[in-house]
């Protein structure tokens, strides 16, 4: 495919877009993993999840 | 109404005793004006052209950076608590404080503008026009900054962060303030159009700023 004289700009635009979108996806996934790990940590230390302690939230 | 008058008088008094009044603002602008020829070179025509812009930028920065103490100090010493037990609407109380702030930092600048215009090689008419735009526009800066001040109270954060949060909001004021000044100085546009918009912006800012600040304070008390 011929992108003409300005090919570097087009390629850079698509490249950067890919990178930014990739970074967003990576951020979301890594963050998810970190939060799950923190929750597991707390559970190991005996702090129970709110949803497992039903009576409290009726107030 | 006497309650609000008392608040206004107290704040003006505090500003004069503690801050030395508008002195710091005026001095800052003197320095800016002295400095500009060094930055640009002794091109008087150019100096006159960008003079209003520089004055406006300086006014903007000075307002925003001093404003975050306006409410924060009242919070730190417990005055804000007591103000909430007062019988005047919080909106009006907050507006009275903003007015006092403008009187002690914005107004001195307006008064000094004709003098500074002299340094910038402006004739008297043009100087008056620039002063007029500042008179019409600086209240908007104060009231926009008020939003930042209220947020900084509720967040217990101050400094540059709050300036950063509200600065984008001041862009339109700056544009029309400078546009009106330039219209008066060099034309070719009529002075009236941007000046009317500037006044409208100020009115909007006063209303929006007052309500947003009061809302922020109400939601942020502890």
């Amino acid at each position: 495919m011929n992108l003409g004289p300005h090919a570097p700009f087009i390629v850079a635009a698509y490249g950067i877009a890919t990178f930014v979108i990739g970074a967003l996806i990576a951020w979301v996934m890594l963050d998810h993993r970190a939060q799950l790990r923190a929750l597991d940590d707390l559970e190991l230390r005996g702090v129970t999840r709110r949803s497992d302690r039903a009576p409290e939230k009726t107030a | 109404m006497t309650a609000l008058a008392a608040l206004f008088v107290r704040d003006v008094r505090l500003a004069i005793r503690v801050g030395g009044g508008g002195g710091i603002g005026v001095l800052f602008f003197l320095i800016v004006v002295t400095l500009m020829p060094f930055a640009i070179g002794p091109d008087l025509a150019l100096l006159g052209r960008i003079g209003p812009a520089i004055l406006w930028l300086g006014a903007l920065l000075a307002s925003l950076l001093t404003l975050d103490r306006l409410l924060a100090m009242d919070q730190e010493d417990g005055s804000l608590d007591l103000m909430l037990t007062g019988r005047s609407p919080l909106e009006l109380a907050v507006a009275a404080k903003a007015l006092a702030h403008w009187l002690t930092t914005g107004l001195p600048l307006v008064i000094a503008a004709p003098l500074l215009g002299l340094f910038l090689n402006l004739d008297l008419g043009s100087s008056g026009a620039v002063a007029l735009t500042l008179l019409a526009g600086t209240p908007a800066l104060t009231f926009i900054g008020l939003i930042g001040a209220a947020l900084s109270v509720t967040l217990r954060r101050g400094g540059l962060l709050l300036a950063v949060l509200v600065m984008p909001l001041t862009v339109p004021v700056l544009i029309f303030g400078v546009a009106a000044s330039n219209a008066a100085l060099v034309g070719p546009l009529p002075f009236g159009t941007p000046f009317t918009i500037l006044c409208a912006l100020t009115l909007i800012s006063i209303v929006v700023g007052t309500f947003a600040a009061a809302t922020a304070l109400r939601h942020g008390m502890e």
Partner: protein
Amino acid sequence: MPIIDLANPTRFLRFAERALPWLAGLTLLAFAAGLNLTLGAPDDYQQGATVKIMFIHVPSAWLGMGIWALMTIAALGTLVWRHPLADVAAKAAAPVGAAFTLLCLVTGSLWGRPMWGAYWVWDARLTSVLVLFLMYLGVMALWRTVDDPARAGRAAAILTLVGAINLPIIKFSVDWWNTLHQPASVLRLAGPSIHPSILIPLLAMTLAFVLLFLALHLAAMRNEILRRRVRSLMMMQAQTAPGSGS
């Protein structure tokens, strides 16, 4: 109190877990279709192949503004209706919105170099988008520096509402400024003059971008809910730990 009452969010979490894989799949399909159409699009007679940049530039621009509008609605949800998920939605949307606005800025710059001969010009549209980007950063900084989400949420909501005034300004400042300085190069392609051979790939890419945003937003909201759960558990632990009295 959003942090205390996470009853609805629990249900939301379950929904998110179920919906995310579907949404991701759909997004992938849409991108495949959109990129395929893009490859087939003809070059513009004036701009040559650089018109291909438009297929990411314009959807990013629209999303950048649209996400702030979404945050504005969420802000109303926080302040007026006190919906527990409203500030979660607002907080999760901000980084995504900032990223798309950045993409708009960068691709615009890359387009501007061959078209205008400069990466950056102080044109109204460019500057106002930069201001939008700065406001995104401001809101993110606000969220990041305040540790109590309820407090930060209300403050960010007020800032978002006030900042929404900026959206119409972004739109209309073009007109104010055009009269002063800017050559009309931005507007040359705009309007109904767009040929369907370019319009259809553009719409396809826009659909793909919107789906991508929905997926990212849902995932980020899920993360935020989990983060708050971690925080409130840590708080509870500090409170019930032995020796907290004297």
